[in-house]
């Protein structure tokens, strides 16, 4: 009988390799320097743990979450082969569930807090049950419980069908929020204009997703007393013709603050962050360009 071959897809691709080796690594290195210690990692790496292996010089222990038994077993193998098995703390189960319940399938808990969180999702971010946004909020709350600043990296698949009720509602709320902050009502049309651009079903979802995610992260972080600094989202071609989107966000905890924090990065700056597109050898000029919001009076 022929022995079947294991499915070990979802490993990596050249664009992702570039992001991991160059873009993310440089930011992680800065965090390592800023904190003056090795970073404790929480993440969802695939069994080859390419990120852990690539960044290990900046890292202390790493907690990985894996919901597929065989993938977890192969991760144990990889950790042994790479001689990092003693630094591995592997939890078994669904990431969202572990975050929300606090325990994995065997009752083990994450080793809070973390300085580096890399959530490389297989799939999109928004599902009907909103479990992923809820889990990320819970993650931010947990970090805040330890008053721990951290770097959050989120990678997800771009799925146009995500353009549903959630995003429409979000854009309406964002519009209201922006207008409430702009006292000069003459400027409100430019807000409406940009919101309707984002709401247009014909525009590529990556623009909408960029705005949604960055705003979501900022909003969740500020509520938990973090000064949040978002970066332009990075899109890149994934495996099997899909597109991926990648967010790298700084969460700096503001000690001794009881009220909601206002980040140094303004909302306007966040909206205008834009997009980058990565390929094998670096960033390329992207065709996905969104309009910028300006609230200056035209002369």
């Amino acid at each position, binding site marked *: 009988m022929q022995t*079947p071959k294991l499915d070990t897809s979802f490993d990596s691709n050249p664009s992702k390799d570039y992001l991991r080796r160059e873009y993310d690594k440089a930011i992680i290195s800065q965090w390592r320097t800023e904190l003056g210690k090795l970073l404790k990692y929480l993440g969802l790496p695939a069994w080859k743990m390419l990120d852990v292996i690539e960044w290990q010089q900046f890292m202390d*222990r790493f907690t990985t979450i894996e919901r597929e038994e065989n993938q977890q077993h192969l991760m144990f193998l990889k950790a*042994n082969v790479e001689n990092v098995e003693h630094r591995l703390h592997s*939890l078994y189960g669904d990431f969202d569930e572990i975050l929300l319940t606090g325990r994995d399938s065997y009752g083990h808990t994450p080793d809070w807090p973390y300085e580096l969180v890399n959530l490389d999702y297989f799939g999109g971010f928004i599902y009907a049950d909103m479990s992923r946004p809820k889990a990320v909020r819970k993650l931010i709350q947990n970090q805040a419980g330890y008053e721990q600043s951290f770097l959050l990296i989120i990678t997800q698949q771009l799925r146009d069908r995500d353009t549903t009720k959630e995003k429409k509602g979000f854009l309406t709320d964002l519009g209201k929020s922006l207008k409430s902050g702009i006292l000069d009502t003459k400027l409100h049309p430019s807000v409406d204009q940009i919101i309707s651009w984002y709401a247009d079903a014909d525009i590529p979802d990556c623009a909408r997703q960029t705005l949604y995610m960055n705003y979501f992260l900022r909003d969740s972080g500020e509520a938990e007393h973090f000064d949040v600094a978002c970066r332009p989202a990075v899109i890149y071609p994934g495996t099997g013709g899909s597109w991926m989107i990648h967010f790298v966000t700084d969460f700096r905890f503001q000690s001794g603050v009881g009220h909601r924090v206002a980040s140094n990065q303004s909302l306007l700056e966040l909206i205008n962050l834009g997009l980058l597109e990565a390929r094998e050898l670096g960033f390329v000029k992207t065709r996905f360009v969104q309009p910028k919001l300006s609230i200056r009076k035209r002369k």
Partner: protein
Amino acid sequence: MAPEVKQPVESNQAEDSEELFYAAAVQILSEDLYPRKLEIIREYIQNGSDALDDWLKISDLVPGDRTEPQIKVSIQGKSILIFDNGIGMTEDDIPKLKRIAYSEKKVGEEAGYKGIGRLAGIAVANKLKITTTSYGDPKLHQFEFRAADMRRDISTKKKQGINEPASPVIQRHTSMWWTDIDPTDHYTLVEIREIKDSCDELLDPDTLIEYIGEIGPVDFSPAFKHGTDISEKLQHFVPDYSPKNVYLSRSDGKKVRVFKPYNDEMKMATPQFIEIPDPDNAGELLAYCWHSSNAEEILGKMRPTGRIFQVEGEEIEERRRFAGLVYKLFGFSVGDRSLPERTLWTTARARAQWFTGEIHIIDKNVQPTTSRSDFIENVARAKLYGEAQRRIPLLLNKLAQTISDNRKMFQDSKNIKQKLEKVKTQLKDGGIERSDLKVIKEELDKSFRKLNTRKNTSDKEIAAFQKEVRRLGESLQTELNDPKRLKPGYSVSDLVKELEMSTKARKVFQIVMETLQQHFSKDSDEYHAIAAKIHKALKDKYC
């Protein structure tokens, strides 16, 4: 109606197609083979050790491979993982994992050979996963045994009265896969997954460190100063002595190298060695033994002090856990520390526990039982036990006696020296009264008589110390005989004044004391002792 009597059916000879091995037997085998569940870990360490040995035989032929040959044990969740970067398994080896008690290892060449060890994990866990590749193979192979599913399946079928043959059940609950891998890789990872709650000691790193250190083919710790000497001797005399680098990852993220359980805090004497020659092959050894005992610093040197070997610990059993010798075969322990005592000592068995150490078996015809608690009864074992009995207990019992004699001689000499020094100080300070002399001399005499009974010591330094004490005693005796060095006792006239005696009483008292002095003229110490007693009695009565 009379009950129907079923006649026993005469069994015919088994036909070729008849299944002789049933699924329940696999369950029984897996659950009952290892009464102490930690022994399952030994099975995998043993397989890892054999894989490293096999790799080392060919590693010189592989260019550029500089990885440290090692076995690594780690705990993740409810899994224990045992990894080795040994020779690995080939594609042909994987299906053979399903075969119970099948082994291609040759008796006498490798540590494990019974073919049960690779599946040992199914006794304590719900799943067993083995992933492996060998040098030159571009495939990574994985084997999975779903033990819990199999147990449930067998149990359900039993309730239904179905006795299913073993093979289809094993087929149903095992799977194999492969994936691409770098052909230069070579390793094996065993994951014993979802360990049962009743076996949670397997998930305790400290228990594993001590267990592997005690039973595994590991080296001596650098924190044990005698380790290098013993290792060198073992490497010289035991042909297959090749300690392995075994590491264990602790839950705090630290990786610990596992060593034999000896360290300098244990206060051990310089080890000694015993060769057990093969009477049938001149120049060949059947076994080689190293042993040591507890030691104390005596006369500036660690010397064996005897008594049952102990280490730090709260309970007595914990303190005595390394007391006794242990048999080692291919570096692995066979039986516990009571086995040599039971198999070699016929008299004075307690003396076996005065020592700690290992008996490395060189004759590979001596084979362990499946449980590794003893050796299979055969001619080789009989020869080993016979020859070892003639040497090890004899030498160690004698050594124990010598250690005991030396310790007692030193202790007695030390006690006398302390007494002598005390007297000498008193004498120097003029604190010894004439009247105390007799008692002091008697005490010293008694001590010296005791010391004289301990004449033989093999330890020259202790003998020299004893001599030094004797000399000190002799010189002190001379000093004690010099009345000028002593505090003068009460004179008759002092007492007469003190008691305000009448003239008549004074004369009577003088006559009594002169008579006594005359009577004890040959033993003036006795006179002074009696005079002191009389003085005290009179003072107590009249002062």
